[in-house]
């Protein structure tokens, strides 16, 4: 019996090549896209799961809340980790800190090789006991026990030591320390929330900090991970308030809270300040997952439509089988066999499509997914499962529909008429239009939101500003000397420096504005800058003045605040704010200027109070000057880069020069949205293509059904235009119905999406127009093409039809 099903299925598929290829192409593309998105989502969900103890690893989060201003910090003060371990030994099994000295790059040298390493960290000796990364050389339990030891990745080993075994050899850290390689690990998997090429023993820094690591409970630069005993996390958290009371400074106690963030939540759910790397976003997985799901549904609907539309061709077969004793269930099984066969064939093509498109997909999505995964039983079964489910789903409705045919009617050819109209089929076409319209509009809105965020008026100028990292350099020790050399070049308009990239990240610093009690310190978002900051970034002053190099007291006594700060502190006017006193770690500072609000971080966040501050003590300057920002003439960007590099080489012997453009750094803030937008765009185009395939098949079939009618009309003098009208009028109505359903749904979806941004762009009515128009034009295009084909046929031949 199965052989019989299989034979009939194959012969039918071959006989109706046109419809079969429409279906197979649609299903193959649908399945391929679905599998790719499935792989993408699995990859996103797999973050950090490769650590064996992942379930019990937590990151300590510090929340500082000063009347709504402060930070949600992913990192903690130095002493917290080990104090927790010694205070709660029954709950905390182990702790480790991860520290990057808050600098973006670290100079590492070995013999004649020198590189700026972005993935260099310091960690406690316990690090590898918590994060189990496979070691190629060395012992994870002891590798970081000694000071001045470092564990490096396989790639780093290759880069610095070539083929030789690096164990026991040294690399030079920032021209200060020689670190001995005590372990080589496999590269940290891409699906880790932070990746490192080098992990040095944190104890190595003791000397730099004067004999022991910082003991302050205010400065919080250490990412702190706890391995909590199973089931103890909640209990541990209930102890945090007492812990804070016991250790944190009085001024902070009322404003600080701590909580544990599960390691497995970090990549998709964490949006804290000072993340090690940008994270993903679980909502985007929902969006992509839904689009992929609908894509497959569209392909399945094509199958529904073509199978039921062409069912007249099968009616006789069904009737005969029923007459000779086939039960309805047997017939349903037969049709399901057919759709299953088709889906498995489509899967075969889909896998080839995946092989061809995977490299492009990886670039687009920023992933490293390989086909090797399919050798894993889980993935293999998953893929076959997807195809099987698709096949069964696609066959379900046709099987139900076709098996219901009455044999007597099927012999008389009555089914033919029924196959032509069909409310169900109309509804399905409407669904396809609805999904297409919604996706077109949403994709347009995602794109516009991204471009809106990239081009939004953030309150500072973004173009033609060169950023050069200068942490720990000679330049940072004598920044003004370097600046004056750069200003010799007529294309250099202005030069300044800052401790984080404006608009991307910033720190918070403690201040006590005048009028607040002595112990009431506040943590305000701030950037430490150099002279000409406002000028370089074109930030407007509302009152007072900018820092002035000729005013000797400015660095120590002067500070700049933004308009939101004036409002936050309840001062009536910008003028009133001038001269107000703020106590700080430098002593007492006074407001010398008020500047306009700017977006200190991404446009996901609203604008709040902000401080710009210059520091004067040499050690402090060096610590805080991490980026030089150089405003250049628009036409001479490359020229200036060469000039700056030349100057750099004379200042920094042996330290590689690196630079980036400010607007590129800002664009990275929206990388997540950009990937989402690109994937959504590609998927939407695929959906429209598949829907168009199905629609073409359907229109072609309808035209075939009406061949005789069209022939008669042509004999009676019908024009091509009237034939187009004849075939398209039904679809135009369906498009109108689809628009009526799609618009309100889309409006709700976009409203939800917009709520995710502090600065969402206004709803784009034009995108609705485009979405509706796209569906309309698609329907018109397809029916027109088919009508023209029909009108070319010789009416005498077509009248004979049937």
């Amino acid at each position, binding site marked *: 019996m199965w052989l019989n099903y299989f034979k009939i299925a194959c012969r039918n598929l071959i006989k109706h090549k046109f419809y079969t290829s429409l279906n197979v192409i649609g299903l193959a593309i649908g399945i391929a896209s679905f599998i790719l998105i499935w792989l993408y989502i699995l990859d996103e969900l797999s973050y950090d799961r490769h650590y064996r103890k992942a379930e019990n690893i937590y990151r300590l989060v510090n929340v500082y809340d000063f009347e709504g201003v402060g930070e949600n910090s992913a990192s903690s003060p130095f002493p917290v980790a080990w104090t927790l371990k010694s205070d709660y030994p029954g709950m905390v099994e182990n702790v480790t800190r991860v520290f990057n000295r808050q600098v973006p790059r670290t100079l590492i040298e070995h013999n004649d090789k020198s590189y700026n390493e972005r993935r260099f960290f310091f960690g406690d000796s316990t690090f590898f006991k918590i994060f189990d990364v496979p070691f190629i050389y060395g012992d994870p339990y002891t590798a970081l026990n000694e000071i001045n030891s470092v564990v490096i990745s396989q790639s780093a080993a290759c880069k610095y030591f070539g083929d030789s075994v690096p164990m026991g050899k040294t690399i030079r850290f920032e021209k200060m320390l020689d670190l001995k390689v005590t372990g080589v690990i496999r590269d940290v998997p891409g699906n880790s929330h932070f990746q490192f090429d080098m992990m040095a023993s944190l104890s190595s820094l003791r000397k730099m900090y004067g004999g022991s690591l910082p003991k302050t409970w205010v400065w919080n630069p250490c990412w702190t991970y706890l391995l909590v005993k199973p089931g103890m996390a909640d209990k541990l958290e209930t102890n945090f308030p007492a812990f804070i009371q016991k250790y944190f400074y009085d001024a902070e106690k009322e404003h600080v809270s701590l909580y544990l963030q599960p390691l497995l939540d970090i990549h998709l759910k964490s949006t804290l300040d000072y993340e090690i790397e940008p994270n993903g976003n679980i909502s985007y997985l929902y969006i992509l997952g839904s689009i992929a799901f609908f894509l497959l549904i569209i392909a399945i609907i094509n199958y529904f439509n073509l199978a039921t539309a062409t069912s007249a061709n099968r009616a006789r077969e069904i009737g005969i089988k029923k007459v000779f*004793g086939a039960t309805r269930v047997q017939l349903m099984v037969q049709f399901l066999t057919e759709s299953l066969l088709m889906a498995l064939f489509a899967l075969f093509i889909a896998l080839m499509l995946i092989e061809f498109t995977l490299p492009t997909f990886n670039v687009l999505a920023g992933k490293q997914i390989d086909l090797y995964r399919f050798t894993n039983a889980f993935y293999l079964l998953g893929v076959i499962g997807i195809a099987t489910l698709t096949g069964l789903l696609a066959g379900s409705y046709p099987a139900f529909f076709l098996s219901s045919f009455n044999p007597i009617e099927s012999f008389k050819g009555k089914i033919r008429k029924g196959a032509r109209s069909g409310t169900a089929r109309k509804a399905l076409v409407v669904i396809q239009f609805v999904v297409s319209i919604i996706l077109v509009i949403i994709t347009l809105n995602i794109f516009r939101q991204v471009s809106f965020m990239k081009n939004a008026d953030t309150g500072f100028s973004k173009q033609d500003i060169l950023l050069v990292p200068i942490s720990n350099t000679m330049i940072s020790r004598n920044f003004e000397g370097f600046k004056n050399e750069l200003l010799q070049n007529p294309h250099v308009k202005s030069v300044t420096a800052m401790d984080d990239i404006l608009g991307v990240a910033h720190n918070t610093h403690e201040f006590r504005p005048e009028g607040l009690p002595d112990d009431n310190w506040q943590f305000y978002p701030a950037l430490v800058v150099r002279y000409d900051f406002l000028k370089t970034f074109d930030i407007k002053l509302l009152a007072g003045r900018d820092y002035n190099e000729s005013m000797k007291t400015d660095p120590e006594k002067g500070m700049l605040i933004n308009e939101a700060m004036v409002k936050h502190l309840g001062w009536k006017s910008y003028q009133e704010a001038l001269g107000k006193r703020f106590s700080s770690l430098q002593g007492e500072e006074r407001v010398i200027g008020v500047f306009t609000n700017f977006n200190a971080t991404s446009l996901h966040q609203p604008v709040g109070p902000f401080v710009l501050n210059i520091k004067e003590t040499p050690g402090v300057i060096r610590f805080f000057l991490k980026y030089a920002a150089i405003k250049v003439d628009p036409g001479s960007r490359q020229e200036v880069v060469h000039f700056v590099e030349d100057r750099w080489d004379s200042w920094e012997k042996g330290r590689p020069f690196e630079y980036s453009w400010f607007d590129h750094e800002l664009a990275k803030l929206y990388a997540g949205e950009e990937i989402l937008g690109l994937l959504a765009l590609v998927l939407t185009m695929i959906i429209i293509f598949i829907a168009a395939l199905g629609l073409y098949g359907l229109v072609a079939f309808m035209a075939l059904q009406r061949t005789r009618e069209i022939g008669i009309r042509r004999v009676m003098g019908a024009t091509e235009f009237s034939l187009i009208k004849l075939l398209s009028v039904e679809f135009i109505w369906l498009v109108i119905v689809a628009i009526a359903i799609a618009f309100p749904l889309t409006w709700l979806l976009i409203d939800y999406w917009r709520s995710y941004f502090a600065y969402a762009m206004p709803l784009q009515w034009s995108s609705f127009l485009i979405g509706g128009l796209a569906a309309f034009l698609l329907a018109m295009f397809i029916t027109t093409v088919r009508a023209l084909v029909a009108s070319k046929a010789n009416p005498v031949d077509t009248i004979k039809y049937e």
Partner: protein
Amino acid sequence: MIKSVDLTRIFLTEEVETTALRQVTFDIKQGEFVAIMGPSGCGKSTLLNIIGLLDNPTKGKYIFLDHDVTNSSERQRAKLRKQNIGFVFQNFNLIDELTVFENVEMPLIYLGIPTKERKQRVEEVLEQMQISHRKKHFPGQLSGGQQQRVAVARAVVSNPKLILADEPTGNLDSANGEEVMNLLSDLNRKGTTIIMVTHSQRDAEYSHRIIRLFDGQILVENFQSN
């Protein structure tokens, strides 16, 4: 074998009510060869559909092999049908996607007969119908007469007690038509009951008895003497 009492079949469409059969009463005994004749639209096919358990009467009573099947479900009718009735149609109704062998084999598949036995029975019946040299061909590759022989083979392969033939020679030339009628007569002589709808007086002469229908009623029953 077959007993019908006051069979009435009314078709309802949106606007029209058509009475295809009016209180038709007749008996058919095992081993009979009955021809149903009458002009187009007189209800012949409707009657054949009811006899063949493809349709239910609107009113009246229909007893098939001692089962009252007047109001039985499609499931029950399908079961009785596949075990007891073979069909031959005017337009052959072979499945184009299946070979001659596979077409004939189909009823046996639905009867759940094992592969080996199926093969044997199909071979036998193809031999009997003198069409076994064409068993690997598809219906489209055969002449009308050959196709109808395949259709008859398919109707008899499951050894039904009853064969229903709906104008079996309607699409055939006279030589092929005669051949098919001889096949049916042979089967009847071997004990199979045959009910045939026909327009052709010549074909009807192969039967024992002719039921003449007009406007859904039995006009007359002629008993033949051959």
